[in-house]
């Protein structure tokens, strides 16, 4: 069966993609950011996931304001890097996993999560920058990707709790997919940043740290946090952080944080990155059971 083995949280700042594409990774401004992903690049090379369910938001690339899906899942065979106004990033085409994508769509829609089904969708920096941070500059991405686009640019976005619960539903769907697949769920965007308005440039290290702590240990507090609190504390665009909760929801009640990185700034944004793995909370295996079953009863 398919199984979710890990979750990754990562900012998706477009300027990071530009720095990489233009060979500026060793400049003092950018070096610490790429250094912050070196552990994760080694980790993921060893993990060799088959599929990534990549939760991100489109930034006026695939979607104009003519139609704004709250949640849209990419069911296509492949996804082209979008032209965001200065030509597409020169990164590999993103190869989908339509069988698993359709399986997830069917499973979660019948659980009343009404996803929009996308058979053609260009993917912008929201999706390709995290891939670049985690995999560098390969000639082909070493993994298949199911894009899951969340509306966070036209108010109202879905609630943080809805994002979390969608992650839980995705986990149930993956667990019933018959093929043996190593699946990761990534939540992208954030951390604190603001573009829109005279408060532009807002960074809130204290909130970001609290968010990362709670993401692992107390996600319920993040689930009930209203939009205005995300906007007030993390900035108008920092509300992208709700997308990390879909990743967190997919990992189950308890997780272990394997890695954390935080850096200010990347252009206008605080960069945050975590690697989380689910911890078993159900029945332990017999060999792991120190208490005899008769005594436990």
């Amino acid at each position, binding site marked *: 069966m398919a199984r979710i083995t890990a979750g990754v949280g990562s900012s998706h700042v*477009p300027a990071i993609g530009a720095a990489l594409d233009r060979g500026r990774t060793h400049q003092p401004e950018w070096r610490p950011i790429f250094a912050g992903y070196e552990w994760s690049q080694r980790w993921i090379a060893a993990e060799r996931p088959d599929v990534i369910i990549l939760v991100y938001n489109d930034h006026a690339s695939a979607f104009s304001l003519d139609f704004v899906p709250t949640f849209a899942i990419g069911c296509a065979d492949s996804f082209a890097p979008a*032209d965001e106004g200065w030509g597409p990033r020169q990164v590999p085409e993103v190869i989908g996993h339509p069988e698993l994508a359709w399986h997830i769509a069917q499973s979660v829609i019948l659980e009343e999560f009404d996803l929009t089904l996308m058979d053609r969708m260009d993917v912008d920096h929201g999706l390709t920058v995290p891939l670049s941070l985690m995999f560098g500059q390969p000639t082909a991405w070493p993994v298949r990707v199911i894009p899951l686009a969340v509306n966070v*640019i036209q*108010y109202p976005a879905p609630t943080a709790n809805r994002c979390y619960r969608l992650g839980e539903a995705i986990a149930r769907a993956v667990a019933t997919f018959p093929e043996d697949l190593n699946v990761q769920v990534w939540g992208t965007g954030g951390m604190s940043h603001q573009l*829109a308005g005279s*408060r532009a*440039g807002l960074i809130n290290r204290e909130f970001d740290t609290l968010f990362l702590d709670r993401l692992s240990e107390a996600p319920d507090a993040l689930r009930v946090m209203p939009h205005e609190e995300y906007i*007030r504390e993390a900035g108008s665009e920092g509300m992208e952080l709700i997308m990390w909760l879909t990743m967190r929801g997919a990992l189950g009640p308890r997780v272990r944080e394997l890695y954390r990185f935080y850096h*200010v700034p990347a252009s206008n944004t*605080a960069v945050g990155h975590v690697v989380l793995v689910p911890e078993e909370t159900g029945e332990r295996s017999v060999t792991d059971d120190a208490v005899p079953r008769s005594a436990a009863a």
Partner: protein
Amino acid sequence: MTNAFDDIPGTVVFTGERARRGRHLNRFCMSLMKPENRARFLADERAYLDEWPMTEAQKRAVLERDFAAMLEEGGNIFFVLKVAAVDGRSTQSVAASLAGQTPEEYGAMMRAGGRSPEGLRSISGRF
């Protein structure tokens, strides 16, 4: 309709009301995704803008590259950034102009850790 985020100073949240006001401005911005439209716009900005049923205030904001005015007139930040992309202008310089700072001042502020939220959480003083 009032929203709780209306109490946050200096922060534009793109509501349905703004989307309705900015409909044609944002559609114009989206048209700049096509290289041939970018070329036509740059060849004669006024003529290209006149093809869209935008208000004069919206057209003036674009012609003057007044990004704060574009947001005020219903522009969505990710759409108006396409005007900046046509000019080869960075997102950071747009953010600086929205903040009323020079790019140098803004860049130095970001390198020093960004703009603190202290004193910028609430107009009413509730937070």
